[in-house]
C-alpha cells in the first residue's frame, strides 16, 4: 500500500531577553547551577510574577513576520503537573488566547518547489529547569537556572508531508528567528527545540491516522532521521496488522531509533485554568505599529532585492539570504569588490565550502568580508587571475595579512609585461610544433591547449587574455 506521511512540528525557542519571563533573574547560558534562580523562580510562597515587556515584544515581532493575527488581548493559563524542575507545580503558558494566532510560513525545497505551511499559533510560556540524574546517591539534582526563561512555542498545522519538508520548514523558521534577532536558536544548546507529531495514512485518505509525538530531537539532521525512522516503524506496525498507539516517543540519536517513554499516568491531565496571578495582556495598535516599523528586511524580501539589484539567479540569492550573517557578509563583499556576480560565486562557492568543511559560522571565517572583497577587486583589476585568487584564498586561512601583502609576498602578481609573455609564447610555439601546424591548418581548438601550456609555464601568473592574443598573432 502507498502511504502518506503527515507531520506537524512544535518548536520551542528561548527568547533572548536579559531577564526571565516573570522575574528579574538573569538568563545567561552556561552559568553555575542555581546562581540565576531566585525566590520567584524557586516558587517561594508569596512571590508574584511580573511580565517582561521585551518578551511580549519579541513574540509580536515574530507574529508580524509570519503575517499572523496578533492577540489584542492574551491570557496566561496554568498548566498543572508535578515535576521537580518546575517547582511551582504548574507551568505558566497560554491556552485559548495566545499572543500570536494563525499565520503562515513559505519555504523553498532543494528542488526549487515552494510550499506554504499554516502556523496554528505561537504562545508564550516559561521554560522548566534541568534535572540531572547521575552521581547523587540515588537522588536527582535540580538546576533551576533555566526555569522561567521565556519561550515562544510555535505550533504548525499538520501540513508537512515528508521529513525533508519538515527540515526545510524548520530551517526557514530558524532563519526568520535569527533575522528577527529574538533568539540564538541554537539547537545543540537547546535554545531551539523541536517536537514532531507524526502519523501516516493510506494515500488519498482524508482522515488523519493516530499520531505519535517525538521528543528530544536536537539537530536539523536528527529531525529528518527521527521522522524517517518513525514513519517506517508505523508502516511496519500497520502492515503487520498492528495499531499505532498515541504516545510520546524519545529519539535516541546514538541508535537512530525512537523509543516509547514508559509512563505510568494514563493520559496527561493538565487541568488548565486562567493564571490568577496575572492580568490579561492588552496590546494596542501603537504597540504593534512601533514593532512593525522596527522589523528588519526578512529573507524573502532580501532575496527579491538581491535578484533585482544584483541580477542574481533565484538559487544563489536563496543560498545567500539563508542566514542574516551570510547575507550581510555578501553585501559587504559586493561593496568592497564592486562585482556582485563574482562576489556571489565566491561566497556560495569557496566560502561556503570552507564553512561547511570546518563546521564554522560565517563570523568564524578566517577570511573576512573585507579580505574577500579585496581579493575579488584584485581579480577585476587583473592583478591576479581567478585561479591564482584561489591560492591567495588558501593563504588567508593561515595568515592575517592583507590581500595585497600576500600577493606581493608570494610573488603571485599576474605577469602583464608583454616582453615576458612574448618569451613564454615563443617557448610554447617552439616546443609544440605539431599543435602549431594543426592550428595553422584551421584546427581552432588547439589554441586552448597552447594557452594552457603557456599558463603552466608561467605558474598561472600570465594574463590569459594576453597569452591568447600573442599566440594568435605569432601563429598567423
Amino acid at each position: 500500500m502507498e502511504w502518506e506521511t503527515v507531520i506537524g512540528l512544535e518548536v520551542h525557542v528561548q527568547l533572548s531577553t536579559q531577564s526571565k519571563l516573570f522575574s528579574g533573574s538573569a538568563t545567561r547560558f552556561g552559568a553555575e547551577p542555581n546562581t540565576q534562580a531566585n525566590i520567584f523562580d524557586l516558587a517561594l510562597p508569596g512571590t508574584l510574577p511580573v511580565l517582561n515587556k521585551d518578551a511580549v515584544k519579541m513574540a509580536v515581532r515574530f507574529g508580524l513576520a509570519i503575517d499572523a493575527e496578533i492577540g489584542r488581548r492574551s491570557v496566561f493559563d496554568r498548566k498543572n503537573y508535578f515535576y521537580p524542575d518546575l517547582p511551582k507545580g504548574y507551568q505558566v503558558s497560554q491556552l485559548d488566547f495566545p499572543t500570536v494566532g494563525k499565520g503562515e510560513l513559505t519555504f523553498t525545497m532543494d528542488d526549487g518547489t515552494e510550499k506554504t505551511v499554516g502556523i496554528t499559533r505561537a504562545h508564550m510560556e516559561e521554560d522548566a529547569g534541568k534535572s540531572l540524574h547521575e552521581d547523587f546517591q540515588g537522588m536527582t539534582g535540580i538546576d533551576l537556572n533555566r526555569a522561567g526563561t521565556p519561550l515562544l512555542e510555535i505550533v504548525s498545522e499538520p501540513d508537512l508531508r515528508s521529513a525533508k519538508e519538515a527540515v526545510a520548514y524548520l530551517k526557514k523558521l530558524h532563519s526568520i528567528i535569527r533575522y528577527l534577532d529574538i533568539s540564538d536558536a541554537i539547537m545543540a544548546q537547546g535554545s531551539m527545540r523541536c517536537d514532531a507529531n507524526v502519523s501516516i495514512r493510506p494515500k488519498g485518505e482524508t482522515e488523519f491516522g493516530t499520531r505519535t509525538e517525538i521528543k528530544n530531537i536536537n539537530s536539523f539532521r536528527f529531525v529528518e532521521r527521527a521522522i524517517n525512522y518513525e514513519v517506517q516503524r508505523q508502516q511496519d506496525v500497520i502492515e503487520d496488522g498492528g495499531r499505532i498507539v498515541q504516545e510520546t516517543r524519545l529519539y535516541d540519536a546514538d541508535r537512530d531509533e525512537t523509543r516509547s517513554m514508559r509512563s505510568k499516568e494514563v493520559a496527561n491531565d493538565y487541568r488548565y485554568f486562567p493564571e490568577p496571578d496575572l492580568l490579561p495582556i492588552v496590546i494596542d495598535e501603537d504597540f504593534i505599529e512601533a514593532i512593525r516599523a522596527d522589523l528588519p528586511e526578512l529573507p524573502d524580501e532580501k532575496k527579491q532585492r538581491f535578484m533585482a539589484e544584483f541580477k542574481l539567479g533565484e538559487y544563489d540569492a536563496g543560498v545567500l539570504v539563508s542566514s542574516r550573517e551570510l547575507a550581510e557578509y555578501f553585501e559587504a563583499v559586493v561593496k568592497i569588490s564592486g562585482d556582485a556576480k563574482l562576489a556571489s560565486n565566491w561566497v556560495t562557492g569557496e566560502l561556503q565550502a570552507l564553512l561547511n568543511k570546518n563546521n564554522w559560522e560565517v563570523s568564524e571565517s578566517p577570511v573576512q568580508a573585507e579580505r574577500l572583497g579585496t581579493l575579488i577587486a584584485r581579480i577585476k583589476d587583473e592583478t591576479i587571475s581567478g585561479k591564482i585568487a584561489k591560492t591567495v584564498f588558501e593563504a588567508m586561512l593561515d595568515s592575517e595579512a592583507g590581500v595585497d601583502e600576500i600577493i606581493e609576498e608570494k610573488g603571485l602578481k599576474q605577469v602583464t609585461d608583454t616582453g615576458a609573455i612574448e618569451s613564454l609564447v615563443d617557448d610554447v610555439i617552439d616546443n609544440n610544433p605539431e599543435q602549431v601546424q594543426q592550428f595553422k591548418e584551421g584546427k581552432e581548438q588547439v589554441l586552448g591547449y597552447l594557452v594552457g601550456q603557456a599558463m603552466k609555464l608561467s605558474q598561472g601568473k600570465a594574463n590569459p587574455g594576453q597569452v591568447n592574443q600573442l599566440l594568435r598573432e605569432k601563429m598567423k
Partner: protein
Amino acid sequence: MALSKAEVEQIAHLARLQLSDADIDDVTNRVSDILKLIDQMQSVDTDDVEPLAHPHDAVQRLRADEVTETNNRDALQELAPESQDGLYLVPKVIE
C-alpha cells in the same frame, strides 16, 4: 453531577493528596455538592457574556527587561533539605 469514588481518587492523585478510605466517602459527597452548585450556575444563559480571565477589570503591567536579582544561592540553599554542588537534591524522579 455526582462524582464516583474512582474519580475522587484520581483527582486526589493528580493533586498529590493522600486520602484515607474513611475520608473518601465524605470528600466524594462534599465535592459532589460543589459540582451541583456549578451545575446550577451552568444553567444561566451566558451566550452574550465575554469569558472573564480575571476578576479585576485591569490590564497586566509590563516590566522593563532588566536583571534585578543577584546570586543568592548560598542563602537559598540553606532553606532546602538537601543540596550538593550547587544543585537542589530531590528524590529520584525516573526509574
